[in-house]
């Protein structure tokens, strides 16, 4: 899209673009190209010689059982978070969309967790589920359930799902509510006059009409679960116990920053880039221009 009337100036636009282009080049394109470059190189253990190894790093990464394991963890984690968040957010949005008293107050009271850092969400939930001092954690143990997220991988995964979802529901709630409120009131009233039940109204009219929002949130939540939950995992489990909460993102951090295995980490980064690019592409391809808010 382009304006019809523009200013005629040959040099000024470049100056206006310059700050953003400089920052983007130095902190985005340079490191991103470095990641691609390093992903086809390998250093000897002393960092003295670097050799070009074609796609060996990718082959090593993809055939590494630990990587496959973290892939599985990521899939289980992301799908759990996405399902959990979207189901609850949609339920709350449908309830708040009704003509009920105090709808605005509910909205405010459900919105604020968006403001929390994922790592802060983790700290708050540790305080609740700590096996000996947390109010729920210690009750579970008193009930004979052997709750200790530091020893049990399944429990650790459950806890990071809960902490991550708790923070993300507010975001989805807002978008679902906006989607529902954009459905023309006449459509809803017509269905009511025809005697449709609340469930039927939702299933046959509201849900199909907000499907662009649903699809958009699906990709947003996957990206959130892939990357933004790093703080939750780092603060809460450190990827453990064992590797039961080591997601792809956490593994990139461990291999690249902690273990300094640059080639392997770069190859993992490139794989992640491809996954994200695919998600963003799908989103633009199918959602752009079809979603209406306000």
């Amino acid at each position, binding site marked *: 899209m*382009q*304006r*019809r009337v*523009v*200013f005629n*100036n040959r040099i*000024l*636009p*470049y100056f*206006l*673009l310059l700050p*953003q282009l400089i920052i*983007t080049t130095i902190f*985005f394109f340079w490191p*991103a190209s*470095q*990641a691609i470059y390093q992903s086809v190189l390998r250093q000897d253990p002393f960092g003295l010689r670097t050799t070009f190894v074609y796609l060996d790093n990718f082959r090593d990464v993809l055939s590494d059982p630990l990587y496959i394991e973290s892939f599985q963890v990521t899939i289980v984690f992301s799908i759990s978070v996405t399902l959990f968040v979207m189901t609850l957010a949609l339920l*709350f949005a449908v*309830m708040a969309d009704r003509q*009920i008293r*105090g709808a605005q107050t*509910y909205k*405010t*009271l459900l919105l*604020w*967790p*968006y*403001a*929390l*850092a994922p*790592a*802060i969400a983790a700290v*708050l939930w*540790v*305080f*609740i589920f700590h096996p000996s*001092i947390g*109010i729920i954690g*210690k009750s579970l143990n008193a009930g004979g359930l052997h709750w200790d997220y530091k020893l049990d991988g399944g429990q650790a995964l459950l806890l990071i799902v809960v902490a991550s979802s*708790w923070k993300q*529901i*507010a*975001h989805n709630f*807002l*978008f679902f509510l906006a989607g529902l409120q954009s459905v023309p009131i006449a459509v809803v009233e017509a269905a009511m006059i025809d005697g449709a039940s609340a469930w039927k109204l939702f299933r046959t009219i509201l849900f199909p009409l907000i499907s662009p929002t649903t699809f958009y949130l699906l990709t947003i939540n996957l*990206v959130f679960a892939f*990357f933004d939950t*790093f703080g939750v995992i*780092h*603060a809460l489990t450190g990827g453990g116990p064992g590797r039961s909460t080591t997601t792809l*993102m956490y593994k990139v*951090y461990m291999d*690249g*920053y902690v273990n300094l295995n640059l080639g392997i980490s*770069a190859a993992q*980064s490139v794989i992640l*880039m491809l996954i994200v*690019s695919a998600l*963003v592409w799908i989103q633009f391809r199918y959602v752009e221009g079809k979603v209406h*808010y306000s």
Partner: protein
Amino acid sequence: MIAKQLRNLPAHLILAVAVVVFAFPVYLAVIGSTWDAGTIGRGQMPLTPGPDGIENYTNALTSARGGRIIGYPVQVLLWNSLLMAVAIAVGKIIISILSAYAVAFFRFPLRMFFFGMIFLTLMLPIEVRIAPTYKVMSDLGLINTFAGLTIPLMASATGTLLFRQFFLTIPDEYVEAAKLDGAGPLRFFWSIALPLSRTNIAALFVILFIYGWNQYLWPLLITTSRGMETIVIGIVKMMGTGEAQTDWNLIMASTVLALLPPVLVVVLMQQWFVKGLVQTEK
């Protein structure tokens, strides 16, 4: 009327439960911040406020030292987070409004190429390129500097897209009138485009402030001295592996202090926040 009230009862119940479940972790943190470490460590913390609140908050703010924890004064960490959040928000708004103005109001060679370059940054969150970005930072000597902490996070397309979208809605007649009156592009930017963007700037500021305040991985990598740390990093370090016998009272007091500013921003500026969220992600 009563029938309607009854029909809405399930909705009220579900929403009320949701509100309570959402608030419960924060309520518990507030309670935890008013007891002594011993009571919490023995697992005997009641669900009502204790007597040590003032002491805990004073300690957290000024020294953050307890029986087990040697922290860094939370007031310094809060200040770091505030500076970082404001710098990222303001910096990003300035560079993106300028580039959006260039893309929307001028026609020049390579316009779409540059726009595409900016657009590409949407594809890759900073997380996926940490190792190489870290290398670039250390080559430039930006590790543990305020510039290193903030400038790389300003490179993003969301602001540019938002402002470009808005600039395209400014009527052509405005530009023609400005040209007739002899106003150049900079004058038009300053007197027309910028004032018209006020609400967009406010909405974007709220979103970016929260984005900046809540950064985690980047400050974790870039800050190496404790005096540079943000509040979120500082609290996670205080918690460590989360032993029962640590100073949970201090951790919880710091947590409450850390979540208060962004929550207040969202609640008090709710309209701008909602506008910003829906627009930047659209």
